[in-house]
């Protein structure tokens, strides 16, 4: 494909490389573009990435392993779209995804991305684990298979297979059971929702996943979906309609908030803790939901919610988006976004760093270990905090 055929040929050259995209809303530093914060070379800033994409598509530079790594180091956190002062800002990540789609079609993707996508093609999850094992997390929890209940509780790959995230999936399931919510899970029948596959540019694979999922949901008579991960929430809410799959979907924090306000979930037990909340990009900047998780936490007596300076639209991505929880292009340094983020969390004096996404959970928990902050800061999912308050192990 030449530059002319590139979907954003008439806007991609409009980037000035003025550098706004590196800042949070209050301009306090240049660490809010995770890839730039990690490498601090102009090529890794959003502007650098757009210029390199244009240069590659107009054959000014050739494809290389390094170019692919730069393109795939973007974590789809949309800080750039929040800060770019120019009118094309709504399309910035689309431009990056379209460039990745071109690399995917030419087969020229980094090895880690090739692995990720092949594993999803074959096993329905990026880890390459067997499909039968996808439901094991729910053993002995009393959670039932989905047959038409009010909600389909969609867990996602990370929640299903990552040992730490499985605990979150279990706890949330039990909290929903305790609140009398009628729901079921797909277990080993659940397949990847494709949000990261789409972000990685494998748009045909995403199409197949979406169509299969929509057919499966319709056959099972799914009416409402509640997701553990903001990534699945994003795909179902924004991208599945194209495949005739516009199901009403909630992120679980929205459901927990409603359950608490409707009195179906009693959190009066309370918990004494100083908590700071990390806004996941796919819930906040992508879908504008900043309040539900905070309302859940503030409804728990004894919790002192303290805000990090980089919160809401200015959240610093944990570095796990856009497939990076697996490809980990931003790992391996004290400047990895997750480690910068946990250092900031520690400065608030909070003892609990609350998250609302399994990807953030794994990234930030590893970062707490890497920073040696285990004694000062523990990473807990909002559902786990609610579980603790309700005495659910």
């Amino acid at each position, binding site marked *: 494909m030449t530059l002319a055929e590139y979907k954003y040929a008439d806007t991609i050259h409009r980037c000035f*490389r003025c550098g706004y995209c590196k800042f949070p809303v209050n301009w306090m530093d240049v660490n809010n573009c995770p890839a730039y914060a990690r490498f601090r*070379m102009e*090529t890794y800033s959003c502007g650098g990435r757009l210029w390199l994409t244009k240069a590659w598509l107009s054959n000014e530079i050739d494809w290389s392993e390094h170019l692919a790594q730069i393109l795939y180091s973007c974590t789809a956190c949309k800080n750039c779209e929040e800060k770019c002062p*120019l009118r094309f800002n709504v399309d910035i990540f689309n431009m990056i995804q379209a460039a990745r789609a071109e690399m995917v079609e030419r087969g020229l993707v980094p090895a880690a991305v090739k692995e990720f996508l092949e594993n999803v093609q074959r096993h329905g999850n990026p880890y390459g684990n067997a499909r039968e094992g996808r439901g094991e997390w729910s053993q002995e929890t009393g959670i039932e298979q989905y047959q038409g209940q009010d909600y389909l509780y969609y867990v996602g790959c990370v929640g299903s297979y990552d040992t730490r995230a499985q605990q979150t999936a279990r706890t949330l399931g039990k909290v929903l059971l305790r609140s009398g919510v009628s729901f079921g899970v797909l277990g080993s029948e659940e397949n990847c929702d494709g949000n990261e596959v789409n972000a990685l540019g494998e748009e045909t694979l995403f199409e197949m996943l979406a169509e299969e999922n929509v057919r499966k949901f319709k056959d099972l008579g799914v009416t409402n979906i509640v997701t553990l991960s903001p990534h699945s929430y994003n795909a179902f809410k924004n991208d599945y309609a194209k495949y005739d799959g516009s199901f009403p979907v909630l992120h679980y924090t929205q459901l927990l908030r409603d359950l608490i306000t409707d009195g179906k979930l009693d959190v009066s037990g309370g918990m004494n803790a100083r908590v700071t909340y990390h806004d996941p990009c796919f819930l906040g900047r992508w879908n504008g939901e900043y309040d539900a998780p905070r309302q859940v936490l503030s409804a728990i007596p004894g919790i002192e919610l303290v805000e990090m300076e980089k919160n809401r639209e200015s959240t610093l991505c944990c570095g796990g988006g856009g497939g990076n929880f697996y490809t980990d292009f931003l790992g391996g340094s004290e400047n990895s976004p997750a480690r910068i983020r946990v250092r900031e969390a520690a400065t608030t004096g909070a003892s609990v760093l609350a998250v609302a996404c399994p990807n953030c959970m794994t990234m930030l928990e590893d970062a707490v270990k890497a920073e040696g902050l285990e004694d000062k800061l523990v990473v807990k999912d909002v559902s786990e905090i609610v579980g603790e308050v309700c005495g659910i192990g």
Partner: protein
Amino acid sequence: MSSVYESLVEIVGGEHVSTQAEELYIYSFDLGTTEPHRPDYAVAPRTTEEIQEILRLANREKVPVAPLGGGLSLAGLALPLKGGISLDLKRMDTILEVNEKSRYVVVECGVSQGQLTSYLERHHPTLMHSEPGAPPMATIAGNMAIHGQGDLAHPYGFNSDMVNGLEVVLPTGEVCRFGSCSVSTQWYTNHPLPDVGLFLGWAGTTGIITRVSMKLFPHKSIVGAGQFVVKDENLIPEIIHKITHTEMVHDLVAYSQAIPPFSSGLHHLTINLSADSEKELAFKMELIFDDTLGHYIRSGDGGYLGFNRGLQRPQVSKTSDWRKGGGFEYVGSIMPVETYPDCYRRGREISEKHGIPYTVLGRVIGMSHAMMFSWTYAFNRADPETMDQAREALHETDDLVLELDGAIWKPGTYGQKLVMERMDPNTLNLMKKVKQLLDPNGIMNPGNWEVS
């Protein structure tokens, strides 16, 4: 060649030096019309010691070094004109000290304007620095190195007049300190020791500024901007003269631009005021908009457009993105204020000759002592024709500045040549000696201010 690379990896670490096509491509462009100049290495140091070692290496291997802050100075000043090392200083971004009592701040060279403004707003709300109109990614030290100006230029002069002290690595690798910091631990004044300040305005050709101390100024709780508009450009100099006489105003800028249409052919004056009380604000507004400018209003020659509280961070202006082409460049100049009418008229002719909607702006420096006057030319990076038009307009404007008896501010190599052709030979010769003294091997940002 690989030995230089290996040495650089030893100095800054493998992740902060690159010879790969991608880095060399990005670091060969600035945001303006200058042709790309490809570096051989892109290096991002973190400490002054690393810069010393890099410069010693550069001297041994005769490798040019071009320092780079935000890279937004346009005119090719941030490009490695003779290849070699493009030294990205943005990792050195620590705000070292803010002294409330003596009102100064000490920053590393990579600290950006946005970062400092945000830091002061959050931690020292009664202090402010003179922030230039450039995007927030521009660095403090980079702005110093080109005699930049900010939104306190009218009351307090060039940003380079606000320097309290410098830490500089000389081209041959030694670290020098200028100002009080060279004798005391405090960075509160640039004088009174013998003056060897040879690093401002040289665009990084005599050394690399690694730390700078800068004066800060009182920041009042109410800040805002009044707007005044006139049709006749000949009125602007006298109006500026009268307003500056009141000594009440912070930033004072006159601008005119064809786009958006409301400002075409008209001259808007932005008058920034600040006050700690409604009383102080009302007094200043009355002094300026009634007593000073009242008779222009009554005569119908000038119009008061109101006063808006709160100052917005300057956005990428509409005109610079007019071509929707991700590119613009402007010629900056330091002119006598009375040349505003000619600057406007002649500048407008150049713009219209090249099919570019004109955009001019004059920011007052001091008490009408001078003004920074700029002509902006937008272009479309995807349409080489518009880039050529913009480049020609820029060069014609460089010529215009000297023709109108002014001085080009932060000129590219074209403008530098014009300036040096007119400078008196002895001063030029002294510049040559200074350069040779400080940079015997000619590795410090060669290609800029090169006296033939």
